[in-house]
């Protein structure tokens, strides 16, 4: 029995240490975020005046989503006269502009402009930054919708925290979108995504905000003080991680504080398929690596180093556990021990997710619909470790595929890769059949 324990510890160290790192950091961040919630909850959040805000929306083939996005601006709990909206088309092939004309007719009080820019999201954002008149600039994606208190919350936090230079909103997925999904597998995946986002933003970024260690603002919804963002080198069009690059510029060059606005909610569509997730997460992974490379020459700072160790270096030791499984099976290790160790690990991660859910849930008090939906579907926490394991492999794929010299907005999807493999297997089988036929005919 003692040799079992010895053996388990020998392999387990590759697993127990990352687990402890995840657990300790998870518990600490949960505790810190919860403490902040308790401290802040009684504060009244009234604005004395309403400064001008510019909202920049890069548009690319957005005909289906633009209406929802712009309508969410018109519903803001903030004077429309103080909001300026730029819709900046960067090479749409559909008739997004017609949606703009319709919206302009429907909302004559909304100060909204249609602009054209050269190809690329970064170019569109830069054009908006250059032309903006607002004291604060908010960038949002055209496929999402702002919560009605989003702009007010951002402005309130900026006005009351003069040291904050930039903020990220809380990105959550749209539950109506999940409800429409019929495929049960896809539905669970989308629910997992919602829980993942809630945890990543409300707890993960919440902690980074308090400790001023944020690696990246959400590209889908971020806000800046105009005087700060105009001192940067603007968005970098050469990297897939233009949002991370902007965050790093503010932190590195301007030594600025970057925070989370816990009450600025931005709802995006749920992921459509595992294929989309496969390309999206690989793009994020490559974006992070690219920005770390760009800032590497200027001395890799601690936040980037820690993020890279977490997102890149530790991927390899975790892969060792997969290797270990092969080894354990090869030497006829008791299945009870192998299964038991994995089960314990699974439960530990599920419990961590449960605790993070409780903390995140505190900040959802004004998002009643989402909060209720998440409570009703809290069983999804049981699937989260599995979901994360799948994402882990996608991230690992992102690391390896990032060596491709040409960055692509969309890498090959999983289905495309599997089709390629099937075709190749088919070709080889045909060759095998030909050889076998030839041998048989010679008989």
């Amino acid at each position, binding site marked *: 029995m003692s040799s079992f324990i010895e053996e388990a510890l020998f392999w387990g160290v590759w697993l127990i240490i990352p687990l402890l790192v995840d657990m300790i950091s998870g518990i600490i961040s949960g505790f810190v975020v919860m403490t902040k919630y308790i401290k802040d909850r009684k504060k009244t959040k009234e604005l004395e005046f309403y400064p001008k805000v510019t909202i920049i929306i890069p548009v690319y083939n957005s005909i289906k989503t633009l209406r929802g996005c712009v309508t969410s601006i018109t519903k803001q709990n903030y004077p429309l006269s103080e909001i300026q909206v730029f819709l900046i088309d960067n090479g749409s092939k559909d008739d997004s502009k017609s949606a703009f004309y319709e919206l302009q007719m429907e909302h004559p009080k909304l100060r909204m402009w249609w602009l054209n820019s050269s190809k690329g999201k970064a170019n569109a954002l830069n054009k908006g930054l250059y032309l903006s008149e607002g004291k604060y600039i908010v960038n949002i994606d055209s496929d999402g919708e702002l919560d009605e208190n989003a702009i007010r919350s951002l402005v309130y936090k900026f006005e009351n925290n003069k040291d904050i230079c930039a903020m990220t909103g809380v990105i959550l997925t749209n539950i109506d979108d999940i409800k429409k999904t019929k495929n049960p597998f896809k539905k669970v995946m989308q629910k997992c995504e919602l829980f993942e986002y809630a945890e990543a933003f409300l707890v993960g970024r919440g902690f980074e905000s308090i400790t001023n260690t944020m690696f990246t603002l959400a590209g889908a919804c971020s806000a800046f003080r105009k005087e700060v963002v105009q001192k940067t080198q603007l968005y970098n069009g050469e990297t897939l991680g233009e949002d991370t690059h902007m965050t790093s510029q503010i932190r590195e060059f301007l030594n600025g504080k970057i925070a989370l606005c816990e009450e600025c909610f931005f709802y995006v569509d749920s992921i459509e398929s595992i294929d989309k997730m496969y390309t999206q997460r690989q793009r994020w992974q490559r974006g992070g690596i690219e920005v770390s490379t760009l800032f590497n020459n200027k001395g890799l700072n601690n936040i980037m180093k820690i993020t890279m160790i977490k997102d*890149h270096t530790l991927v390899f030791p975790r892969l060792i556990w997969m290797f270990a499984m092969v080894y354990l099976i090869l030497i006829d290790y008791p299945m009870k021990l192998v299964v038991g160790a994995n089960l314990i690990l699974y439960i530990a991660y599920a419990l961590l997710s449960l605790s993070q859910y409780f903390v995140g849930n505190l900040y959802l008090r004004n998002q009643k619909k989402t909060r209720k939906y998440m409570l009703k579907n809290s069983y999804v926490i049981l699937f989260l470790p599995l979901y994360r394991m799948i994402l882990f492999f996608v991230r690992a794929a992102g690391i390896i595929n990032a060596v491709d*010299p040409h960055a692509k907005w969309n890498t090959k999807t999983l289905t495309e890769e599997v089709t390629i493999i099937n075709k190749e297997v088919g070709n080889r089988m045909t060759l095998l059949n030909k050889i076998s036929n030839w041998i048989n005919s010679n008989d």
Partner: protein
Amino acid sequence: MTIGNIFMLLSLMGLLYVVLVSLKKLNLNFFKFFIGSLGVFTIAMMFFMDPLNNLLGILITKIMSVIANISGAFEVYAKNSLLIIDARDGIISMLINYECSGVIELLVYSSLVLFFPFVSKGKKVWALIGGNIYIILCNIIRLVAIISMVKWQGIGWYNISHTIIGRIIFFIMMIFLYYKVFTKNQLKYQRVGEIK
């Protein structure tokens, strides 16, 4: 190795080769990395673990003998791969097994390096040779750390130093290696721009 084993080894290597050539042709980098490193590790574990373990055991024992001669803090019985530590409150012996030799860590690391897309073949060879030497050194450091703890704190420290502290020291040193070899290398040569 029996003829049956040799046949099995060649068949497995042949199969892995065919799969890897296909994946390379199809430009599926991640699948090539994952299947390649897992495949090489599995084959190495099945067929080469014992001889490699013996070889490394001899090497570690030799190095430990030199350290023992210089420091006089412990004794090494090379024949039985045994380390004898004369602590202040008793004597304890330690067998150099596959954990101390670090053969598994060496195989895992080597199979990852073999298929990680380095910028040049030279870098890969350097990572392979340098990394393996580093892992052997890490093992020596781990052993020296365990011996020192037992020697100065007493044999009661053997379990904690061997089971926990030694492993944590080794783990941290390995993370440093992985950071240098995989992360640093990729960050240094990552191409940025030319978005399609």
